[in-house]
């Protein structure tokens, strides 16, 4: 049994039943799932959560669908890693990485797709579809296969090879569209009007889909011992994840799972080549002007972010900031995280780490804050971004002499014994 009381338009407040609706029929504003929090509070407890599965479904009471056997590949409950070496490099005190590279298809999208397809199946949909910058495509194709649903995935034609392969391997239909993500998105929005029997996870099922991102906040709080961090850094594509992270922390308090009311500063991270939200933040306006994206961070390359206003609002109300970083800084961010913490992030993770570094350098993120950075996708998805930047130290013949020559002048043979434990 779920605790959903209905859907409500974020713009005009009109209410709707919990069906496959994604925008307000009246003003096109996005619909938000509303819950009966009193009933959730009466049911949900730390013990009940801790006894649950090690997936997003341990928080089912605050998800918009209830199913004893959800469409599940094991999304969520990813590691929260204390990052002391990274913190030291950045002059910060306590930094944690939410390592969502560890999800089944290598990105946080598994959280939202598991929720979306579980709800879609419950509503009676047989075909799963989406517009995607790649990570969502991977996840929809995989979860549809898992659920025995057909899938139809639309992606921009110029995506990274790994993301295309990782979508196509699951046996669904994949269409590479000659255009940007915004073009693909528009095509999908139009298709959704013509194919009401398909579940477009980020169109007609989006209301449910987006709720899956709340689990990032739930997990961070649980993994910190039911405490919230002082500051989180979240990448912004559509703005949905950041908005839902804010909602997640607020809900934990609302249903009585936290001892103290959370006060979490939320900062947004964008790539300079696609930074409509960071630009609006810097200019102090509410008007988010769409842009034509030009960045290696393709998973964030959404020029017309549908939830941009809400992300901006959440940032401002939390006392956070929003910044953008260059493609060169994105690569430095990927390398910094890899070198200091052993985590290989895709370009979006590079955006997050580079923004963390930038805001730390500006004193916006402070050494006295407990900081969590959301690293949302695996580096193997975007290896093209590092081509020419990293590679073998040398290519050598299989001989000791060749090895010594390649190691250089400081290398010498030694008589010292191998280290051993005392």
């Amino acid at each position, binding site marked *: 049994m779920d605790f959903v009381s209905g859907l409500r338009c974020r713009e005009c407040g009109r209410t709707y039943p919990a069906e496959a609706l994604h925008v307000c029929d009246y*003003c096109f504003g996005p619909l938000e799932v509303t819950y009966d929090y009193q009933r959730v509070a009466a049911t949900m407890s730390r013990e009940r959560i801790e006894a649950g599965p090690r997936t997003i479904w341990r928080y089912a009471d605050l998800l918009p669908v209830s199913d004893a056997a959800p469409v599940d590949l094991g999304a969520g409950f990813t590691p929260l890693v204390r990052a002391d070496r990274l913190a030291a490099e950045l002059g910060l005190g306590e930094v944690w990485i939410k390592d969502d590279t560890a999800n089944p298809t290598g990105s946080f999208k598994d959280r939202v797709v598991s929720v979306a397809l579980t709800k879609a199946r419950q509503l009676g949909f047989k075909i799963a579809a989406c517009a995607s910058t790649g990570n*969502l495509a991977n996840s929809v194709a995989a979860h549809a296969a898992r659920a025995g649903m057909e899938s139809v995935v639309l992606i921009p034609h110029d995506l990274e090879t790994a993301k295309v392969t990782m979508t196509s391997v699951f046996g669904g239909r994949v269409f590479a569209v000659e255009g940007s993500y915004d073009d693909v998105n528009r095509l999908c929005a139009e298709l959704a009007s013509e194919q009401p029997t398909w579940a477009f996870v980020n169109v007609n099922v989006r209301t449910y889909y987006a709720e899956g991102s709340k689990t990032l906040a739930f997990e961070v709080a649980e993994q910190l011992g039911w405490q919230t961090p002082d500051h989180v850094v979240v990448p912004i594509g559509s703005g949905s994840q950041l908005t839902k992270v804010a909602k997640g922390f607020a809900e934990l308090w609302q249903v009585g799972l936290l001892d103290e009311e959370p006060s979490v500063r939320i900062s947004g991270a964008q790539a300079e080549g696609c930074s409509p939200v960071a630009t609006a933040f810097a200019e102090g306006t509410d008007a988010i002007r769409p842009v034509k994206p030009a960045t290696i961070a393709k998973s964030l390359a959404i020029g017309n972010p549908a939830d941009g206003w809400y992300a901006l609002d959440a940032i401002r109300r939390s006392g956070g900031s929003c910044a953008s970083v260059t493609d060169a800084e994105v690569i430095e961010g990927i390398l910094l995280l890899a070198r200091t913490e052993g985590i290989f992030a895709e370009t979006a993770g590079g955006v997050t780490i580079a923004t963390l570094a930038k805001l730390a350098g500006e004193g916006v993120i402070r050494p006295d804050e407990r900081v969590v950075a959301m690293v949302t996708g695996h580096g193997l998805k975007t290896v093209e971004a590092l081509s020419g930047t990293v590679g073998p130290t040398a290519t050598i013949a299989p001989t000791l002499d060749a090895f010594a020559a390649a190691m250089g002048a400081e290398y010498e043979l030694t008589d010292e014994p191998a280290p051993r434990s005392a």
Partner: protein
Amino acid sequence: MIKVRIPAQLRTLTGGSGEVSVEGSTVGEALKALDAAHAGFADRIFDEAGGLRRFVNVFLDDEDVRFLDGLATPIAAGQTLSIVPAVAGG
């Protein structure tokens, strides 16, 4: 004539039709003509200031009119306007 593609959410205003034709020399004029022919459109797609509501996207052929001249963008017979609700990404 200018073709206007209507999203599912607004087809109650067009008697179920997904495509209608109007006249007009700018995007704004065409949308006002749409409202004159099918009462209710203006209320749904324009905000109080007369601009497009922020979750309403209008495309002239393949281009978002926000990248053109907005409602003042000139439009010629044979072109297609599409009204599309904004959707989330990933």
